[in-house]
């Protein structure tokens, strides 16, 4: 066999990767990274406090707010931090110019970190870099104010960054034994973050046998407003594949592997020495399959690094939409109402939608908007009036195809949610239809009951004599029952379908414009969470019809009175009884 060595041609030159440490905590993380001697990236430290900046090991340092804070810290005030950042904006922009990947490490809650981080993220994005943010959240004992500051900043960061990995300080306890010193706890947290950074860098900087690049990384972290899940494990020796996977899954950032169950895309990167065998890879992937859902898109990459020797390292990166982590449905409702408020202002924009059935569609958008209002807020008295308006409007405009517009309009009522959210993006006048898909995603769940309305309507459509509308109706029949994308396919507005794709693309590049998008998209994963909770809730009351002495499962003797003999329930296995005692 002719052997040939691959040139370790780096896809991304090391000069294009920058690790930025912001604030005190960021500086600590940076130190950790520097100590672990990372190759392929440059370090930059930013701070208002000149003392910590001075003692930092980074090559590049920029002091923020030279005149504002005069070398002191921000004192926990994010406002000051923000202004300090703005003062030094040009210098920071200079430093971030031409970077392809920027890792921003910061501790949120204080002044510099919380205030300056969103701005840095914005600057980095504007310079065209892929931004990965590693942020730590304050301890509970630091108080509510810091927590709120941290969360505000986090929300902004979530929108501005490509990937956001948060580490909650309260979980530091999971990293070390209880009796170890606090110094070790902090350094363990820092170490974990530096491992993560290293792993991501290794992933994109060095090519491997099976390549994963920035594009795969972006695809894995696709949903905006998502939280990044990260796990990395290293092991060596016998059985290293399983050990490494176990280490990776036990990472606190992965919540012991349970969060992977909801992931849609998982990026797996294996790296090992020359001794890496196919069998190990197979074994590892098989074990991994147990933890990810079946339909998840697994992006697999492998690299051989002779320098690794006998060790095998696995990196798992995935993203979950934010609400899957927090389960916040309340936010989305408030955002829906916000969109409704904007509806009226947007009526003019909607007619720009092209479609072959322009005659018919014209009145619909306003009708849709009203319809959306009706669907989303059933209690509001307005919708009633609006439907009247709707009826009035539709009548005069369609003399010929009368049955059609009504049923279609009513149909569109359910689909209308898509169009009605267009108002949110008044800045993009020509792009109304594009954001349409997302809100409907969110409307889908709230409209489960309204679907009952389209159904009887559907029957009327079927009876409609017009050939053209029939064709449309046929297309639309499946729409009601199918999920959202097909709904758009059925719509005569082909543009929306195309634009559907654009939206996904767009969301990668300009998340700032779709600030309102996020909440809608997030709604989609919400319903599964409540239903599972419901299921659990439903189970408990049913089974607890009488007070049981012992909740242990009793198998065959389920439901019988405890077989008490000399003070012990003989129906329970001694094997388990003795384990307890």
């Amino acid at each position, binding site marked *: 066999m002719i052997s040939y060595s691959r040139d370790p041609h780096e896809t991304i030159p090391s000069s294009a990767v920058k690790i930025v440490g912001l604030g005190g905590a960021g500086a600590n993380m940076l130190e950790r990274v520097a100590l672990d001697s990372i190759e392929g990236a440059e370090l930059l430290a930013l701070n208002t406090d000149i003392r910590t900046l001075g003692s930092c090991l980074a090559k590049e340092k920029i002091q923020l707010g030279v005149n504002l804070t005069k070398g002191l810290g921000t004192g926990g005030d994010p406002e000051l931090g923000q202004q300090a950042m703005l003062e030094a904006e040009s210098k920071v922009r200079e430093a971030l110019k031409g970077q392809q990947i920027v890792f921003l490490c910061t501790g949120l809650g204080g002044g510099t970190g919380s205030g300056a981080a969103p701005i840095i993220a914005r600057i980095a994005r504007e310079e065209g870099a892929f931004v990965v943010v590693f942020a730590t959240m304050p301890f509970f004992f630091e108080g509510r104010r810091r927590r709120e500051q941290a969360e505000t900043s986090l929300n902004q960061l979530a929108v501005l960054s490509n990937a956001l990995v948060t580490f909650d300080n309260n979980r530091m306890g999971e990293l070390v034994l209880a009796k170890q010193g606090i110094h070790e706890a902090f350094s363990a947290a820092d170490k974990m973050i530096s491992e993560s950074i290293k792993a991501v860098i290794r992933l994109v900087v060095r090519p491997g046998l099976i390549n994963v690049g920035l594009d795969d990384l972006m695809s894995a972290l696709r949903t905006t407003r998502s939280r990044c899940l990260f796990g990395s494990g290293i092991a060596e020796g016998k059985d290293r594949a399983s050990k490494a996977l176990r280490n990776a899954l036990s990472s606190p950032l992965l919540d012991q592997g349970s969060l992977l169950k909801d992931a849609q895309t998982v990026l797996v990167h294996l790296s090992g020495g020359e001794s890496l065998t196919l069998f190990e890879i197979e074994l590892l992937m098989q074990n991994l399959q147990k933890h990810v859902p079946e339909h998840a898109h697994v992006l697999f990459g492998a690299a051989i690094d002779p320098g690794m020797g006998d060790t095998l390292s696995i990196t798992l990166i995935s993203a979950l939409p934010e609400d899957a982590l927090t389960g916040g449905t309340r936010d989305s409702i408030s955002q829906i109402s916000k969109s409704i408020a904007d509806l009226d202002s947007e009526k003019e924009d909607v007619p720009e939608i092209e479609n072959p059935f322009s005659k018919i569609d014209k009145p619909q958008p306003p009708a849709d908007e009203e319809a959306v209002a009706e669907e989303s807020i059933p209690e509001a008295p307005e919708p009633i009036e609006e439907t009247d308006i709707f009826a009035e409007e539709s009548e005069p405009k369609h003399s010929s195809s009368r049955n059609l517009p009504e049923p279609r309009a009513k149909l569109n009522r359910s689909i209308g949610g898509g169009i009605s959210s267009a108002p949110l993006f008044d800045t993009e006048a020509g792009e109304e239809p594009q954001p349409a898909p997302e809100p409907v995603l969110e409307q889908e769940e709230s409209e489960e009951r309204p679907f009952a309305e389209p159904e009887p309507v559907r029957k009327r459509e079927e009876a409609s004599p017009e050939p053209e509308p029939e064709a449309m109706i046929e297309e639309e029949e499946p729409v009601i029952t199918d999920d959202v994308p097909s709904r758009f396919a059925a719509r005569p507005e082909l543009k929306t379908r195309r634009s559907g794709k654009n939206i996904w693309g767009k969301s990668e590049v300009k998340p700032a414009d779709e600030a309102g998008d996020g909440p809608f998209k997030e709604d989609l994963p919400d319903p599964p969470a409540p239903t599972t909770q419901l299921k659990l809730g439903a189970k408990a009351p049913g089974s607890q019809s009488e007070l049981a002495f012992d909740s242990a499962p*009793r*198998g*065959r003797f389920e439901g019988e009175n405890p077989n008490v003999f*000399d003070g012990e329930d*003989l*129906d329970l*296995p001694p*094997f388990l009884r003795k384990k307890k005692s």
Partner: protein
Amino acid sequence: MARRTKIHVGLEIGTSKTCIVVGEVKPDGAVKILGIGVTKSVGVRKGEIADFPQVRACVKDALAKAEDASDVEIGSVFLAVTGSHLQGVNNRGTFRLPDNQKNILAEHLEEACDMARDVHYPQDHVPLHTIIRKYLVDGLEQTASPIGLFAKTVEADFHIVHGIGNRIQNSIKLVRECPLEVDDIVFAPIATAQMALDREQRLRGALLIDIGGGTTDYALYLDGAIAASGCIPVGGDHVTNDIHLVTGLPFSKAEKLKILEGNASADPSLSVGIAKLTDENGFADVEVKRAILNEVIRQRLEETLRLVRDRLPKGGVEAIGSGIFLTGGTSLTNGFSELAFDVFGRDIYRPESTESTDSAHPSFKDPQFATAIGLIRYAQILETENSRPPGCFGRLLRLFWPFGA
């Protein structure tokens, strides 16, 4: 006196099986089994009837099979009962002879017996058996009847088995509805002991443990007389349930594993590796670590045996001369003898486990039928002393003989 061969039928309604054994008692005392009717029990939990119609159906089924096998029309049966409510206690009644009388007369003995039988029963309990164990004449033990001896005090030591009257009545009612007459009700281990223990063994001291599907019955014989008896509501089903709870396997698989692969001895060499259960139907094989399987089985059976041991009177175990006799379906567990030896430290006797016999000719030695066959023996003994001409001696013997010698 020549006795015609009499046919007796024993019925045992157990947790895992209901069986009726038809036996013929030969003039010389030998028992010949004519036929056995066995059916799987449904509706019996821990030895007690939980679902009447189902149990009745089982009994009728077993009846039909037994009649078929033995070619005998069965009209009445001896019924074996068990259940945790049945307890055996020893009680002694002392009678001090009046001063003017020096010899023990029958009335005195009767008096002593009455006092002995006067046990405080828990609420709802009725006596099932009152068995004389021994007499004491001025403190000296006598096995034979002391009538005519000189004494100042005469004592009668009884072993009384009592249980909840209504439950026993219900069992009788169920059998009567079959329709079958009930000749007598016998506490299961006592019936089993008739068959499993011979006179010499009883004299030397023997403990019989019958571990069935739902209960563990025991009877201890010392010096030829019954010293303790009782029932612990733990049986083979509990072992299977334990396996099911610990490993998560379905019940049927747990049962199969228990029978085929389980081992109760703590032999470490047998607890290595994985026990596999292949399924003929083509479903996935079941695998369990042998260590866990054996540990679960052993802990359960060990606990059960310890419970039995704790129930025996003080010094009882040490007084066992001949050994422990194990019977019942669960006693067929591999390694059970070793476990029993670990708990009791005595010689262990087990009935040979028979290969799978077809139901038409179940082996007489199969430990599963020990109780039912024991009922026949009991019937025979009862028959024997009943057939004796009643008299002074006969009356006393009736009290004494079937249970002692």
